[in-house]
C-alpha cells in the first residue's frame, strides 16, 4: 500500500482571507517575525497496490482542487 500526500494551495495571485486572519492573530500574539501565512488543504490518500501516477494527478487536479483558483503538489511514498 502507498501513501499519497496532496497539498492544495491557493494560486499566489488569489487572495487568502484565512491566511490573512491567521497572520493577524500571530501579530497580535507578538509573533512579529512571521511575514506571511497562506492556508491550504492537505490530503492523505492510502492507495492499494502501486499507485498510478497519472490517475492520481488527475484526481488531484480535477477533484481535490479547482484549477481556476488552486495549485496542487503531489508526493508519493510507497511503504
Amino acid at each position, binding site marked *: 500500500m502507498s501513501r499519497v500526500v496532496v497539498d492544495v494551495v491557493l494560486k499566489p495571485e488569489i487572495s487568502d*482571507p*484565512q491566511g490573512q486572519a491567521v497572520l493577524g*492573530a500571530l501579530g497580535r500574539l507578538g509573533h512579529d517575525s512571521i511575514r506571511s501565512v497562506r492556508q491550504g488543504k492537505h490530503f492523505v490518500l492510502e492507495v492499494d497496490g502501486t499507485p498510478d501516477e497519472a490517475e492520481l494527478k488527475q484526481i488531484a487536479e480535477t477533484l481535490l482542487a479547482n484549477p481556476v483558483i488552486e495549485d496542487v503538489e503531489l508526493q508519493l511514498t510507497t511503504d
Partner: protein
Amino acid sequence: MRIGVITFPGSLDDVDAARAVRLAGGEPVALWHGDHDLKDVDAVVLPGGFSYGDYLRAGAIAARAPLMQDVVTQARQGLPVLGICNGFQVLCEAGLLPGALTRNSHLHFRNRDQVLRVERADTTWTQDYETGQHIVIPVKNGEGRYVAADADLDRLEGDGRVVFRYVGGNPNGSSRDIAGVTSGDGRIVGLMPHPEHAVEDLTGPSTDGLGFFTSVLKAAVNA
C-alpha cells in the same frame, strides 16, 4: 442585574443576546473584545456568529482576544459564562470547557428548529428548566459537531456535565447527541443551539430560550 455581551469582530448574534437579556428583565452591557474591561458585570454571554470569519477553526482566534484573558481568569473564580454557538466554540478553544467543535458530519451548514432535552436543571443557566424537559430552540451552524476522546466523553457523562442533548435527530453528528456541556461548578455553560432566537413568539419557534436568561438573573440575585 448586569449581563455582559461580548462583541468580537464577526460576532452576529450579539444584538439578539442583548435583546434576550432585556426581555428576561436584565440589563445588557456591551463588552468589546479588544478591551481589558469586564465593566463589573454579573455574568457574561459569548454570542453566536463567525468571529474572525471562523477562519482557522471556529472560535480559535477569538479565544485569544485580550478580553478573553479576563473572562478566563474571572470564570475560574466563579463568574457565570454562557457560550452560544460561536461562543461555545470560543469557550472550548479557550480551555474553559472540554472537547472541541468540528465540521458537521454532513458538511453543510444547518438551520432548523431543534428539540433539546435538558439533562441538568441545576446549572446557573438552566435552573428555570426541569430535568428531562424538552425545549425547542433554533440550531444553526456549520461546525457544531461536538467531539472528544471516548474516555473523556465517558468522564463527562460520569460527572454529569452534559447539559443538553439533541432529541428527534442530531443536526450535526455530535458525539452522543451532545448539544451543550458545563464546567464542573455549573457556572459555565456552552451549547450550539440558540436560546436567544427563541424569546419572542413573533420571531422564534417558541419562547423556550428565555429560561437561560431568567435562570442567570435568579442566580445573580441569590449570589
